[in-house]
């Protein structure tokens, strides 16, 4: 966990990619879930944030 947080602060690829992946996964689930409309409403912004973040953080250096 400490390694993960350290990776976030030092802008390492691994932890940031995990955050972006979680955002994308969450956004897609929100888009397709049949439970609450508000989750659907905010799904696109979550997915978009995750996708843009994923493209950017893919260029970060690897964690040692």
């Amino acid at each position, binding site marked *: 966990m400490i390694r993960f947080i350290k990776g976030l602060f030092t802008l390492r690829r691994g932890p940031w990619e995990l955050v972006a992946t979680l955002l994308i996964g969450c956004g897609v689930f929100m888009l397709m879930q049949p439970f609450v409309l508000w989750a659907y*409403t905010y799904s696109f912004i979550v*997915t978009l944030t995750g996708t843009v973040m*994923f493209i950017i953080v893919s260029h970060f250096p690897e964690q040692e």
Partner: protein
Amino acid sequence: MSEKTIDRLASATPVRVARKVKGLSDRAIAWIFVGPTIFLLLAINIFPLLWTINLSFTNFKANRLNREVKYIGLRNYERILGDADVWLSMQATAHFLFWTLFFQVLIGFTLAWLINKKFRGNDLWTTIIVLPMMLSPAVVGNFWTFLYQPQIGLFNYIMTFFTGADPSSFDMLGSVDLAPWAIVIVDTWMWTPFVMLICLAGLRSIPDYIYEAAEIDRASKLRQFFTITVPMVLPFLMLAILFRGIENFKMFDLVVQLTGGGPGSITEMASINLKREAFEKWRTGYSSAFAIILFVTVFGLASVYVKALNKVKER
């Protein structure tokens, strides 16, 4: 290329062309070769994408070209993301996507595993199984419509044989409960062979000596399956899921042919809804925003998936 051939080509090159090429660097020549492809890519893929993004912020209607086009900011996105009908179409897409992938992977892998066993008529069975994939979706949609007919359809009679229910008591394409499953069955029937072929390639790429070593170590068949077969086929399986997932997310032809989105709008998937908005209601700006939402979703999922696939391959 032999020296003679090179000399022959050099002598055949017109002097004017030879003089022009002579002064070019390797980099420039590379650009000359790659240039047309990049131009085509920009013209066919990138420009329409940028144009769609631009249109998604307008109230443009393709059937009213004389009307003034106004920029309305994010209003199209707001409407789509607050529309309960679009939400329902997303749920229909999710249902179709999940169950088709589930059945195709399960049946496809099982078939590949069985076909991989050496038995008589192996090639013939492979050909027979692969046949549905070679048919056009329009043809498949048409003949499954006949198979699903409550009065004369073969499917209902087969179901009667197993369940004992009257064949005309249920209509696969006309029932709200059954129609989503009807399209899942047809897509699974059509595209399971594709998953099977990819899995078969994976299974055949596993060298026999690994199994022989496992036999020597007295590993059981079950253990061999989970520690050798599954991990080594996994990259192939993931590739098949990626291809089928993207295809099924934008599934259109088969469903239109089978149900047309009905009964009601229970099988109206995102792509069908998008087509209605774009070419029946002519809300081009709105449908462009809808297309961008779908694009970002597929792009995001595919990026993560390709990353995971590479990690599995490295292992």
